[in-house]
């Protein structure tokens, strides 16, 4: 003889009144997660500034002049596509770190995105960036 198992009604449904709260908490949780994402960027090592008088060191270090839309390597304008290869070629014969210093001088109106492109290419070519910033001095004439 077969005995039927009694089906008990033990299935408990979650209270539907809490669904709104759960949805709200989930939204807030994911919003916070999205805003706490860490920043990513590009490391750049720059030496501390020194006050130096203008010396004839141009023959020692490579000089890059950054204009608004073009960069000059030792006075010669170089196309952005060839810039890194040109620098790599110039730095190839310089094994000592002090010879790999590239002096970067920028015009006042150079936008940051172009400056970043140029300096990134210098670092990728193996150069060590040094910024040359002109200091303004007020001299009172008696």
């Amino acid at each position: 003889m077969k005995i039927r198992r009694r089906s008990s009604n033990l299935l408990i449904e979650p209270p539907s009144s809490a669904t709104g709260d759960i949805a709200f908490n989930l939204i807030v949780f994911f919003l916070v997660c999205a805003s706490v994402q860490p920043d990513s960027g590009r490391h750049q090592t720059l030496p501390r500034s020194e006050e130096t008088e203008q010396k004839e060191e141009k023959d020692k270090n490579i000089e890059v002049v950054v204009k608004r839309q073009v960069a000059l390597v030792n006075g010669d304008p170089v196309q952005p596509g060839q810039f890194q290869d040109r620098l790599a070629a110039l730095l190839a014969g310089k094994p000592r770190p002090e010879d790999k210093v590239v002096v970067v001088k920028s015009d006042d109106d150079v936008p940051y995105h172009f400056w970043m492109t140029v300096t990134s290419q210098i670092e990728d070519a193996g150069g060590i960036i040094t910024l040359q910033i002109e200091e303004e001095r007020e001299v009172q004439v008696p």
Partner: protein
Amino acid sequence: MKIKRRATRADVPSMAMGDIAFNLLIFFVILARAQDDSHLQWTPAEATNIETAGHSVVSVLIDSDEKLYLNGQPIGEASLESKIDELLRDFAVGDRTVLLKVHREATALRFEPVIEAISNAGGELVHVVEEDRDE
């Protein structure tokens, strides 16, 4: 005849404790984030070979109006170096990361002295940029 007052017990539902704790946690996380510079307007530049910046206590930002901020607070260029130096005083080499966020159209006249100040304060500079996907 005295009628006894019925004592009614009103307990805080223990079911809600988890929700309350969770909401408090989120509230304080948002509060902590409100002190940073996420409310400022700037567009990052692009670069290649970028990596995670890691933990930093100093963030310098130049916004789209070329205004300068240190940890979300406006600051003058002249006092930037000393303030960064003060903030980084207790940190050893390797933990002195300074995040630099510059609006992509900001000019060298504005950002180069800032880079110089960070460098002079002994900060380890990280340019916050986006990965250049065109390369």
